[in-house]
């Protein structure tokens, strides 16, 4: 079967994506150093604490304790690079038209579960898609909004007097910190699923995020097909 090289990811997107990786990792790591100083969150059900963020062994294993100042140094330096990288990404995505592949379209919410079912090998056929399927559209758009949410809740915690309107928007200082924390947990969960999906999608897909290119089959010219729709096929 004849092949084609398809350019999937522009150079700028690839650089911004890979630069974001260490930056987000540093923000999460330094955030953990800061969080340790007041580690109050957990998952509670009927007053019973199912999980505490985080168990002492977790802190000790990563040698987190007593590093608040260092955490703040890292956080308030790399926050600039993280935010700038994110803003450049969003601007590039809009200007280049790449947003078309990423934003949800009508029906995305409805089809996304079928993508998940297909990924889990429960159903055989994947729903129609573009460069990204509907589950990807939803999660990639969400993760960008989460980034914006982290920057905004971060500012609300960082400058609750000077940006008191922003802090108030998130329900006050304590809620802003709570949201900031859960957005971080969500980034970690996104990362785990993302890495798993990339691993399952295989080498060529991963390679395309490095090189920009994938090898695809020359599409069958559907206009010549007798089975385009049920009616045509019946004739």
């Amino acid at each position, binding site marked *: 079967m004849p092949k084609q*090289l*398809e350019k999937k990811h522009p150079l700028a997107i690839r650089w911004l994506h890979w630069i974001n990786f260490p930056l987000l990792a540093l923000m999460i790591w330094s955030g953990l150093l800061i969080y340790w100083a007041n580690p109050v969150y957990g998952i509670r059900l009927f007053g019973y604490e199912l999980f505490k963020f985080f168990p002492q062994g977790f802190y000790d294993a990563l040698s987190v304790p007593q590093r608040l*100042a*260092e955490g703040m140094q890292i956080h308030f330096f790399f926050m600039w690079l993280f935010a700038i990288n994110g803003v450049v990404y969003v601007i590039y995505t809009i200007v280049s038209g790449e947003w078309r592949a990423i934003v949800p379209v009508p029906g995305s919410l409805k089809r996304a579960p079928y993508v998940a079912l297909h990924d889990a090998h429960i159903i055989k056929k994947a729903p*129609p898609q573009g460069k990204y399927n509907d589950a990807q559209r939803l999660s990639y758009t969400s993760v960008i909004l989460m980034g914006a949410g982290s920057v905004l809740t971060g500012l609300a915690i960082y400058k609750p*007097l000077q940006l008191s309107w922003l802090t108030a928007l998130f329900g006050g200082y304590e809620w802003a910190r709570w949201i900031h924390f859960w957005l971080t947990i969500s980034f970690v969960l996104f990362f785990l699923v993302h890495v798993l999906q990339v691993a399952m999608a295989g080498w060529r897909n991963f390679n395309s995020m490095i090189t920009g290119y994938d090898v695809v*089959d020359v599409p069958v010219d559907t206009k*010549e097909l007798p089975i385009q729709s049920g009616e045509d096929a019946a004739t």
Partner: protein
Amino acid sequence: MSENKEVLAEKVREFEERTGHTVDSYPDDPNNTASMLKEHRYLSEPLTDGEAAKRIFIRSRRSFLTAGAAAVAGILGWSWISSETKTALYRSSFEFNESLSRAFFRPSQLAKEFPLSSVTPIRTNGYEGLEGEIDPAKWTLAVGGLAGRVDDLILTLDDIKKMPRADLVTEFKCIEGWSTIVHWTGVLFSDFAAAYPPKTRSGAPPDVAGSPHDLVEYVSLNTPDEKYYVGWDMPSILHPQTLLAYEMNGQPLRPENGAPLRLASATKYGIKQIKRIGRIEFTNERPKDFWAEYGYDWYSGL
């Protein structure tokens, strides 16, 4: 003709089987999400398997070399930078953030004030400079850097309490990340500075309310034993939500919360709200600061 169609139909079945996609899903079925937003595809001319493999190999080699070089440069570069340089880098980033924060600082920008019923239990933290007992009756406050005098002015607690009383119910924020709502009572620092005006930069007579920008830039405060000390920028300490407090939640300050006189402010973290003040000095030199010496942000402004 029908034979051709059979061949194509076979191809379609094979394609669907192999990829899990319906063949009409990509690229030009109207239901396809790509066509809804007119997503573009960038495809090369048809190639043989061998040619496609060769081209992707060349591209991969180039990209992986670039990416690998960038990653190695990043990691080696960062580990090559000495820890002193990193500390300096972080300090200058704190100072950059400070200058930005100060550029947007407005005395009219106020923190939210709460009703008295919102006050939460006291949480005490930080005992540096609080060793030993202090008798409020014998305690005095030394004030240096005043306009028109060289030596320190010595004040008693009664001198402070004679000034107009002010109340402040705001969210106290610890740099550790927790907060409590506290009712402070005391004297607005701006009232104190108006009563005992600091030196000016120009040498002109001070006008605390009218031209605060001409006052010396900083205020240095320390405990009587000088074991705890903080530095403040003038605009933050003159902010209408900064007090020299002698009461907390309607009671005289307890020793562990800073009796007989402490700073209370909505403009900075608790580390800056020094307890048991012994001396205040108005100065043009950026004062040393206890926690800044441990790597915290000197400004620590909210």
